[in-house]
């Protein structure tokens, strides 16, 4: 991982929060190279003890503009709770002027599979 070109961008967060280093690196890699997000910023959520990634996600339908999304990586072995998720939203509110109403949780596995879950504050009607 150290020799990967992305490592310097994440080095500070990797050394500060070593437990979530693998998940952060894998998510950053996936989001940048495979999902093709643009305008990527790495944020620090000290309340959750990890880093998060914010960027512009290209829209699936042609013609629509990309949307700003925030993804919080975590490992498969970790246990999440609703207070953890609330903490993540609170930390984002502190950091960003226009904090999004939804965030993505990226659950990373050892074999590099990532499953993304979309979490919204409060009840949200699913899109048709």
């Amino acid at each position, binding site marked *: 991982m150290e020799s990967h070109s992305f490592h310097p961008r994440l080095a500070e967060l990797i050394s500060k929060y070593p437990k979530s280093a693998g998940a952060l690196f894998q998510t950053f*890699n996936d989001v940048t190279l495979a999902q093709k997000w643009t305008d990527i910023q790495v944020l620090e959520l000290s309340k959750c003890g990890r880093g998060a990634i914010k960027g512009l996600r290209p829209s699936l339908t042609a013609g629509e503009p990309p949307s700003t999304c925030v993804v919080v990586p975590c490992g498969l072995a970790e246990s999440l709770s609703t207070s953890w998720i609330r903490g993540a939203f609170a930390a984002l509110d502190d950091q960003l002027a226009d904090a999004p109403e939804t965030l993505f949780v990226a659950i990373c596995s*050892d074999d590099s*599979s990532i*499953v993304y879950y979309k979490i919204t504050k409060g009840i949200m009607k699913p899109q048709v």
Partner: protein
Amino acid sequence: MSLIQPSSRSKQKSSQKSSARRTENNRIYAHPLPIIFAEPSEPSFLRKTLHFLGVSASDILNPHCQGVLDVATRSVWVLDMKDAMILWQRGFFGKGDLSRSEPSWLARQINARKLAKQGEIRVMTSEEVTAKRRAERKQFKLDRAKAMAAATAEAEAAFQQGRIVSTVYAADGTRMIPSAATWKPKDGTQPDQDPPRVEEDEEDEEEPMVNVEHLQLTLQEAFFLLWNFDCLSISNPDGDTLTLLQIWNAFQNVHIPCPTLAPMIDPPQHRRFDNPFLVNYAIYHHYRSFGWIVKSGIKFCVDYLLYKRGPIFSHAEFAIVVCPVYEDPADQDGSPFELNNASPFSWSWLSTINRVNSQVQKTLILSYVTIPARSRVSQDILSSPACFAHYTVREVVLRRFIPARMRD
């Protein structure tokens, strides 16, 4: 490249592969393991005699792949693409870290470039096939919604006037609301057209693409290849090759939280039977030794998926949930590892997992691994892989029983 399938506009379902593709797949994925037994074309007399007596004296061809241990992601990376394709094609080991299964990131970038330049791509990776199918399905749903709205409006207008119109068939006899079987995607290009000729000097301007993808092996897959077949050698990030004993220690130490992310090759301070690496390896080895292809099951809420021949050939039939059982409950209380599903889980959780897997036609299997008691078995046995003889695996198959329906 092996992953390339010719794009076909025929109405065959994806499960009915053409026989040419099947033959091609059978040729590429012929070997179930990375090592190959090769018979020389002209066997000597000694070989023939041994063969007659039932002793096989064929040569073993070992690909000798290289991997690097990465502690942060708890995996072994295979950076050389040639080694990566060998491990994938012979046994479906590992996963491309930027792809769905087979490392295809570079192929997708090249295809994206070709699409921008020529407007169509002839050969597609599995991710592109899926994306195309999803886009078509989305378009079909939009068309159907529009047709339904139009039919409703027409029926309303007719009702106002006192007429009755059919909402199923239009005046010319075709169905008004498209169904999945009859809908055809509307696009201008014909697949049989030749792509427009590209000027030769345009191609020289583009720089060659660097492949940033690697094949990621889990610790269990890496140890399986290394210990049983000796076809993988693992080095630490500095480049030094690790010995079997160092790897044995490092793989267990990966699960012990540590501030530095360097591989720890000294024996763990307190050896424990419930180290997640050992527990998961016992399961992995158990199913691999029966010939199943074992892959991660994170997408279906389970621990592992079992494939009969490989993901290329058919969908996984079985979904495995690993349930570690402590022979001595006192071991669990003092354990630094919180193994998943070691405590009984609720009926609602079990039902959820079973429903998810039934919907995708997989059978749920609960695999109980017994973790030996520290009081009965000495911890010195953990200094080598011989400890696996003390783990046992039992399976319980779970199927939902619906008394009303299952009598017929």
